[in-house]
């Protein structure tokens, strides 16, 4: 067996760190206001998980492939959550012609309205449709670029459509 024997002191140190972090996360959860708490709590949880994985699960001394396997699951979970949220956070938006006068016509792009509008998750706020400065302007810019590229083709369509009529 090629396993290294880790001193008890190391394990005890890790346990102590984990318990301190537990106290810290509960304290932070009680003190901080809504919203910020979840970021802090998840950061602390991540630190705790990394400690357990590195020391208790011996990844620190593990072979590269074991490290890869340890990371892969979490990476793939990030893909699943990340890309699903890309949809959810940019989905809301009123239908096209129902936008009150004065707001950008491009706001119509997310044609579907979910039953309850999404609340922003702080870290991903830049994707939120409510954030005019980001997602809508992103889509608006995209639309403009593409529109410029196809003006001639659009005109051709219209012409053809009239001719058919």
């Amino acid at each position, binding site marked *: 067996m090629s396993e290294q024997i880790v001193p008890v002191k190391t394990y005890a140190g890790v346990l102590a760190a984990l318990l301190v972090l537990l106290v810290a996360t509960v304290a932070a959860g009680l003190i901080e206001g809504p919203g910020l708490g979840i970021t802090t709590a998840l950061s602390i949880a991540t630190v705790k998980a990394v400690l357990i994985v590195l020391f208790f699960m011996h990844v620190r001394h593990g072979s590269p*492939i074991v490290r890869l396997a340890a990371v892969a699951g979490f990476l793939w979970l990030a893909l699943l959550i990340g890309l699903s949220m890309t949809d959810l956070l940019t989905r809301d938006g009123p239908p096209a012609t129902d936008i009150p006068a004065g707001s950008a016509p491009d706001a119509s792009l*997310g044609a579907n309205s979910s039953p309850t509008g999404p609340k922003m998750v702080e870290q991903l706020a830049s994707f939120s449709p409510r954030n005019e400065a980001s997602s809508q302007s992103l889509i608006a810019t995209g639309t403009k670029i593409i529109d410029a590229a196809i003006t001639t083709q659009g005109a051709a369509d219209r012409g053809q459509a009239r001719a058919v009529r």
Partner: protein
Amino acid sequence: MNNVQLPKRHYLNADYNVWSWLLSTDHKRIGILYMISLTLFFFVGGAAAVLFRLELMTPGGDLVLSETYNKLFTLHGVIMVWFFLIPSVPTVLGNFFLPMMIGARDLAFPRLNLASWYLFVGGGLFTVWAMLTGGVDTGWTFYTPYSSTYANTRVMLTAIGVFVSGFSTILTGMNFIVTIHTMRAPGMTWFRLPLFVWAHYANSLIMVLATPVLAVTLLLIGMERVLGVGVFDPNLGGDPLLFQHLFWFYSHPAVYLMILPGMGVVSEVITCFARKGIFGYTFIAFSSLAIAVLGFLVWGHHMFVSGQSVLASLTFSFLSMLIAVPSAVKVFNWTATLHKGSISLDTPMLYALGFIGLFTMGGLTGLFLATLAVDQHVHDTYFVVAHFHYIMVGGMVMGYLAGIHFWWPKMTGRLYPEWWGRFSAVLIFFGFNLTFFPQYLLGYLGMPRRYHVYPDEFQVLNVMSTAGASILGVGYLIPLVYLIWSLRYGKIAGPNPWQATGLEWQTPSPPPTFNFDETPSVTERPYQYSPWTPQTAPPPEPELAAAETTSP
């Protein structure tokens, strides 16, 4: 070749009683067990297809009721996807040959391998029982809220069967990855691995990382359906699109589960029958990994008209386009392998070339579906049906048959009748195209999938499709007959009837229980074929085989 004899002792005659099979931990025997069970499931699923193709001969619903029709296509989808296509090449050919190709005596976890088979067969028989005695009508996609609230059929029983067999897939994938990492023979470095092994490595990554999400999704359907706890149904506060995200996070990569191992088989077969080293080994190997990884990033292209956000649709369309590149790289490299080879069109080669042609068409029509505006028109029509059948049947089933024919002599020690082999390969190719090519046209015309009755003007193309399906059905029955026939009457193959390279050919056919009498050591890259060797006179048999053989 008449002087060649079967070896005296091999894995098939090592033990005869039933328990020596049902409790075997020999990867080769488990591969055979899988082959028998898969064949059974294939013909159950195929029978359903024949029935509903007959129904679709006429526009009206005159053969079966709507309920029955819906249960038939669901049965076909569920059985074919989970109990034939996904397990086919990995569990039969992968199980049998992956350890032999890397020079191992068995998979890393032989008992787990046997447990996988039990989970698979248990889940499969349970599902078939549930679907034949009561039926389920949700389609294999189980879309919510239909499946979770509205369907009155055996959704839960079917889901349980699929759930159980999912663990079989996970365990198989895990077994393969560990085997490839830890069990390679001396000298078998990563870039000396046959491409079949690379394909299975990539495939196992998907098995391991995607399947659990399906399992938990089915669990959530169960929660909603049985306990009435809302997860996906809007009436209970849920969102049906979450289901689609979770489901396609599994099911799109699952499409690559159905094609990557087939690609592995084709890489082996093409080189052998072109007598030439594979062109662009590294590119084919890494394109398998690229497909496996990119395959996880494209699921939203099933949701362009689902109400998904525009930004998400754009992202997924863009990522879906990228996956065309590794697929194209593979096709170009296989074609280049043929250049200046010494090609013989034996049965496995016919299947493999058929695979390349049909996969090319299936892959290219995938681009139509990844293109946002075209997908708005063809999504959920017969265009989609044709596309994925070109990949799954034109691709995977052709790959599976190529592999079965290529390695049949190794598995059984006997050759199948070559003329019948070529005949059925050609028949299947034409039957397949006649069945599914008209469906592309139907799809662009706008015929939605899963329609029991349809407008009259679609009839001509549907009749063509049904005619093709009957040819295809006959095409699949012929190999079943002659392969069974060959078990007793086929010519003795000898250790290496194709003069193939690769470790699996350096041991007698059928192989001994522990695969090799002596652990082989590897000194060169795979596919050291030389087109200059005259092929009319076979090279002398290795000493190994001669020593093992004896008169019957």
